């Protein structure tokens, strides 16, 4: 039962970059189950973004093992790697929308690039936009939207391909508190539909408010892992 629940497992994972003496992630062990909502918190340089990159397999660990649905990520072949990435929805702090594409095209792009048929794209894109509350903005270009709306497009793009997990790296970093709160509620809605959500964030007040699992990191190490946790004192040092 435990094995079926587990989506991601990190076993004593370390990651060092060539130009850095201090490892970005040090001897970290962590398990994330299907359908969980996890906040990754900690000061800048704690290793949160590296952890997200490791799960996405943008980086590989220097030592240790990461499994996703029981498969060792370091051993994925090119085709398996593509399949792995297609099951992850990524959300970025800077949205990474394509400015020459409309809202609809940006979301549709996520399905186009993985070769989904046009019929499926026509069906899924409006549904994803409706889920993030952007119905009616299909023809707008990113520059015509507020920061919060742009991030909603980013989230729609992440969820349109029905991912197993959404990985968000500082998704509210460029937003005011009100917008950030709305986005967190949106992530919660997505999570309620069964999608696992991992969010790396500095938004301590939102973390405290939402009472979700909190994994706190510092200097690449896991220092706290609490169900229904709070941000703690880590924000003081940022």
């Amino acid at each position: 039962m435990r094995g079926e629940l587990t989506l991601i497992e990190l076993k004593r994972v370390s990651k060092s970059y060539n130009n850095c003496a201090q490892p970005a992630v040090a001897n970290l062990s962590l398990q994330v189950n299907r359908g969980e909502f996890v906040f990754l918190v900690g000061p800048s340089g704690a290793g949160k973004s590296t952890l997200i990159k490791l799960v996405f397999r943008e980086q590989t660990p220097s030592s240790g093992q990461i499994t996703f649905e029981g498969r060792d990520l370091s051993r994925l072949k090119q085709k398996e790697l593509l399949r792995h990435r297609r099951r992850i929805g990524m959300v970025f702090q800077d949205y990474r929308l394509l400015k020459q594409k409309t809202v609809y095209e940006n979301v549709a792009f996520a399905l186009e690039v993985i070769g989904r048929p046009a019929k499926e794209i026509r069906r899924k894109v409006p549904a994803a936009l409706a889920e993030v509350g952007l119905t009616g903005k299909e023809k707008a270009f990113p520059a015509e939207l507020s920061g919060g709306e742009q991030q909603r497009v980013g989230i729609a793009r992440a969820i349109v391909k029905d991912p197993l997990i959404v990985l968000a790296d500082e998704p509210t970093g460029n937003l005011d508190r009100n917008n950030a709160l709305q986005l967190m509620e949106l992530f919660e809605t997505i999570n309620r539909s069964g999608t696992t959500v991992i969010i790396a964030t500095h938004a301590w007040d939102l973390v405290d408010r939402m009472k979700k699992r909190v994994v706190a990191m510092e200097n690449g190490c896991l220092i706290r892992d609490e169900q229904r946790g709070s941000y703690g004192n880590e924000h003081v040092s940022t």
Partner: protein
Amino acid sequence: MNMSALRYGLRQGFLSLRRNLWLAAVTAGIIAISLAILGGFLLLAVNVGQMLRTIETNLEIAVFLEEGVDPAAISRQLTEHALVQGYVFVPKEQGLVEFAQTLGDPAFLAGMEGENNPLPDLFRVRANDAQSVAALAAAIRAFPGVETADYGEELVGRLISVTYWLNRLLLGMSGLLALGAVFLIVTTIRLSVVARQDEVGVMKYLGASNSFIRFPFLLEGVVIGWTGTLVATIALGLGYERLATSLQQEALTFFIRPVTDPAMILPIFGGLLLLGTLMGGIGSIVSVRKFLRV
């Protein structure tokens, strides 16, 4: 690759071409120039080769006889030799007349008739084929009563040697030009990639395959390469046709007859088209490679 991916690739590839139209045109132009030069060299090489073959095929061996030798004995041996296609006997009297005609001044040879004729009797021998000329000449030299047998091997040897080095020089220069053209394609496509770097990055995060990302750039490079080559082959083809027609009309000499056989010309043009297209494709792949590492 499915239909929607193909549509996306085609749309992006042509959009990129339109965006970088001038650079693409310049690149195609340089490819056209380098391939036209390469094609010109190849046509020249084919023609020089044919000219050499014509010369060799028409080579006659001049067989000079020793003083007092009976031409009938030599004639018999020539008739029996397997490599001999035909021969003509030129007695020394006739030789003197021909020599005087070559000099254009009969007075110069006054007093050389009869006993004073310094020329030997000779046979003009034709071999069965060009490859047998050297062997036949060597065989005839061994005939008793033959002083020497000469077919201008020094001239032919020098021509072959000059052609050999000329071909290599021209091929080397063409290779350098082609390399320059590939670098230019790499630069052009890299500009396209840089212009779409964000898109490429996002595509990787969305799980796009390398071939999906590469396809529009590959298409762009191949279209540029192909356009350049098409211009080169059309220009070269028209130019060569005009030159060949004018040379045929001039009917300069029997051996400067341009090659017009499609079996020899078409592979050159086909090869150029293939080469240009490959140059475009390889240039694109090299350009994109670095950006695919995410």
